[in-house]
């Protein structure tokens, strides 16, 4: 089957799910899964070398004829939508079931399918107006998904912030597409590299798409929205929808000429986003907020790769010269990281959701020791933690390795690009080490040690509906990790759709070696773990209390907490984290109570946007005083207004 009928089938499946979702959950799940599988197959056809699929119709929507097109680059993102969308649907069936949430579950299914459909529409539209409509639809659908639990105040606040910030982005995109249409005379999209006058429009796109992607400092909406949404929604938002911002940037940079400063800006923004994103993540004590900030970091890594690709493309020609080769590696790394992050981030959010479901809290310092009750979730979360820290032998390492290799090649080629690549590589290294600290902290506080509260002690393993998608996504992570060379042609085709000269399908020789090393490492790690376990079991194992400096009755409260773990590295970023501490010291000979509270604010939001918003609100309040409902004053306003206009006419009438 060609992609056309498959995509039609996918759309039909999702629409049927949309209709069925109101009453019948199993039917919804069946239809949605069928649609997701169809979309995945369509995307796979293109990534495996199928010709781009195109469909034009005279049928006009909003006055514009329909123009749908799917090429390898769109297919790369469509595959991610299908995989995470499908996995999320199964997860939602267990996590947000009709039994637990009789009111919001049907609503959630409705908006979930709307979200998937509009995400697909964004990836298929090659008309600026339709792109905008689909974009707005997916923004709104995501808003209703975030606010499924709208009886909670912080959920409403998060949804509101998301909606306001997203519309600022949409406004920029509206200006971008409208200006583009005004200058080219058509809403049709497509390559127009020769129109040098379109270059400045890139900045509008950067703000609009960058805001959706969660680029620093436009990320303000992201942590609260992703933390407060139901976990399957967090997974698709962190894993997929922020990637659509990357998709938009890729398309813009691929179709339009970019200003000379744009690649440099992207690399710098990417490096800053990565470093500060992970610094904020490390300081969080709410596991879902931590994961959300970590998404900001990963967007930074992708942006570094993208900026490097643009720099190389501007540097060399479109052909595979030495100058461009490193850019191709960086782009391949960025594109592969889009997949990788989508996969392990949804795995981690699913895991966090299971923990939330089992214990009712997202505060890591209230959890602990969950591995005993939730062995599946614990081991899958640990796998995701290793993957997201970019460690071998998992998939995060492969994509980061490609980005690194691109940057290192830029450095050794001694091109001017090295001045961006050098600091970016060092910052990437620091980011990696901080990510490791972040995920050692997250994993160990939640799953290891002793339970810190009764809720953590009484936890239970999640249902198979929730476990299944986690296993599936983890398996996908493992597949990419162990066979990176097989993924290369898919990525290369997407890169070729972006920059025609870059579609070299033979993987770099070192990628084969790396794949072999990853397999060997994974096998040896298993073998060594098993051997040591056997050896330790061979003699008698004595179980004892943890040795706490000879202390006989250690309690769970003596364990390290989130803030104490992050204290050292967090202190280096205190200038931006601005942690607020409340300390009550023990006083007197018989101290009654002492406490130390620490909170990391949303610095950009509270220190930068907050004051500005406060001024605007003040001004609005002042203006509002004019309106008070007293008729005589209104008549006076009219008279004064008329008099003013009259004066203007009389004075200006002479000319």
């Amino acid at each position, binding site marked *: 089957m060609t992609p056309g009928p498959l995509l039609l089938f996918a759309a039909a499946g999702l629409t049927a799910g949309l209709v069925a979702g109101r009453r019948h959950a199993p039917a919804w799940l069946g239809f949605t899964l069928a649609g997701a599988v169809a979309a995945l197959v369509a995307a796979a056809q293109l990534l495996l070398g199928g010709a781009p699929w195109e469909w034009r119709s005279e049928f006009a929507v909003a006055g514009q004829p329909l123009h749908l097109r799917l090429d390898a680059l769109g297919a790369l993102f469509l595959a991610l939508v299908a995989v995470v969308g499908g996995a999320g649907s199964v997860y939602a069936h267990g996590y947000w079931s009709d039994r637990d949430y009789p009111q919001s579950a049907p609503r959630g299914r409705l908006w979930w399918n709307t979200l998937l459909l509009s995400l697909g529409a964004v990836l298929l539209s090659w008309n600026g107006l339709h792109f905008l409509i689909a974009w707005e639809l997916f923004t709104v659908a995501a808003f209703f998904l975030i606010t499924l639990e709208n009886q909670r105040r912080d959920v409403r606040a998060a949804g509101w912030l998301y909606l306001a910030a997203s519309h600022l982005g949409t406004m920029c995109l509206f200006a971008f597409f409208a200006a583009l249409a005004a200058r080219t005379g058509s809403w049709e999209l497509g390559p127009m590299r020769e129109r040098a006058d379109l270059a400045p429009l890139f900045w509008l796109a950067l703000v609009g798409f960058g805001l959706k992607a969660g680029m620093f400092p436009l990320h303000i909406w992201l942590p609260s929205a992703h933390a407060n949404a139901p976990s399957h929604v967090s997974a698709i938002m962190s894993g997929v929808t922020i990637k659509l911002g990357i998709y938009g940037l890729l398309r813009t940079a691929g179709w339009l000429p970019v200003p000379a400063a744009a690649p440099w800006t992207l690399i710098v923004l990417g490096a800053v986003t990565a470093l500060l994103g992970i610094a904020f993540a490390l300081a969080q004590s709410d596991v879902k907020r931590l994961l959300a900030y970590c998404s900001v970091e990963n967007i930074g890594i992708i942006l570094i790769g993208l900026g490097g690709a643009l720099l190389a493309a501007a540097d060399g020609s479109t052909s595979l010269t030495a100058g461009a080769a490193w850019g191709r590696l960086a782009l391949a790394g960025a594109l592969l990281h889009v997949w990788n992050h989508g996969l392990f981030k949804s795995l981690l959010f699913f895991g966090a959701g299971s923990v939330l479901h089992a214990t009712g809290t997202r505060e890591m310092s209230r959890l602990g*020791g969950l*591995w*005993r009750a939730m062995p599946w979730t614990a081991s899958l979360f*640990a796998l995701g933690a*290793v993957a997201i*820290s970019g*460690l*071998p032998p998992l998939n995060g390492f492969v994509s980061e*390795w490609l980005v690194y*290799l691109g940057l290192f090649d830029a*450095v*050794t080629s001694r091109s001017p690009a090295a001045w961006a690549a*050098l600091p970016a*590589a*060092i910052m990437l*290294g*620091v980011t*990696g*080490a901080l990510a*490791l*600290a972040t*995920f*050692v*902290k997250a*994993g*160990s506080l939640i799953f*290891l*040690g*002793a339970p810190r509260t009764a809720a953590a002690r009484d936890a239970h393993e999640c249902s198979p509906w929730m476990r299944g998608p986690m296993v599936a996504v983890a398996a996908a992570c493992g597949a990419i990790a162990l066979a990176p060379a097989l993924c290369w042609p898919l990525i290369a085709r997407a890169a070729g759709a972006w920059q025609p000269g870059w579609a070299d399908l033979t993987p770099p*020789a*070192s990628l084969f*070696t*790396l794949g072999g*090393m990853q397999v060997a*490492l994974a096998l*040896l*790690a298993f073998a*060594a*773990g098993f*051997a*040591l*376990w056997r*050896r*330790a079991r061979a*003699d*008698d*194992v*004595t*179980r*004892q209390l*943890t*040795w*706490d400096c000879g202390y006989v009755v*250690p309690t769970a409260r*003596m*364990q*390290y907490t989130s803030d104490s773990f*992050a204290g*050292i590295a967090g202190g*280096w970023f205190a200038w931006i984290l601005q942690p607020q501490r409340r300390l009550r010291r023990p006083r007197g000979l018989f101290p009654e109570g002492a406490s130390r509270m620490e909170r990391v604010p949303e610095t950009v939001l509270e220190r930068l946007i907050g004051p500005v918003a406060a001024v605007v609100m003040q001004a609005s309040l002042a203006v509002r005083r004019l309106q008070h409902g007293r008729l005589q004053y209104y008549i006076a306003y009219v008279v004064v207004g008329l008099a003013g206009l009259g004066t203007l006419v009389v004075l200006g009438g002479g000319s």
Partner: protein
Amino acid sequence: MIVFLEFVARLVGWLVLAPLLPGIINKVKAWVGGRRGPPVLQLYYDLARLWQKGVVLSTLVSPGFIAGPAVAWVAVLGAALLLPLGPVGAGLSFRGDVLLLIYLLALARFCTAWAAMETGSAFEGMGAAREVSYAVLAEAAIITAVLALCVHSGSVSLATMLNPAAGAGAVLLAAGLFAVLLAENCRVPFDDPNTHLELTMIHEVMILDHSGPPLAAILHGASIKLLLFATLLVEAVVPLGGLSRPAAAGVLAAGVLVVTVGVGLVESLLARLAFRRVPLLLTTAFLLCLFALLVAWKGGAA
């Protein structure tokens, strides 16, 4: 067949020679302190004894407590096997293998810290937090040092990167890498491997609850890591590529011995730093590597 034999020889070399280094360091410390000290082979005896012993596990730990040291040991050994040995070259060399080496060490760190957190002990949490935090700065220094070598040699694979004659920045690089070696291997002035006060330790406090074979794996892994860093330091600084094979092997061995004795001397003559000073020293190491990078950059342009 030859390749296989060479691989086995390399593996056995790393496994057998590594525990020698802590013994030499201890001997140097004893000698400076005017004591007789433990025998040079003490760690071998310790490892053999620990391997025979039973295990005491905390009631809280999961299987990850034992898997952690095992995976960390594999990771460190894998990193060591990636390192070319002067004249013999690397067993397996590919573009970007240096990144795999750095990240394998990071994997070992992840596993050690994870295993430490298994116990739920405040002390081990403290050690893990310190380990992963200070590693951030060490990582910056080591990436910068690698970049300096890349720029100097124009290559991104270890075998060619460590081959050419050292540039003008060799001294800077040596100082920077030596500081990283001390930090990554938890030696004075960053950490004191001999102390018995949990509050002041990094690495040793992370392994307080380990015993028996897992502890043996940790100690052996740590000694491989020390040998790895010492070899890397020597190869980065001394131009082994120009020498004949026996001479290069001799120089490499002598270099590693000098570094080991140097660690012993530092440990005898310096006191451990206060913890708030540690970042300062690591930042200095980073800056030294950064200057080496700039020198390499300038040197190539001329």
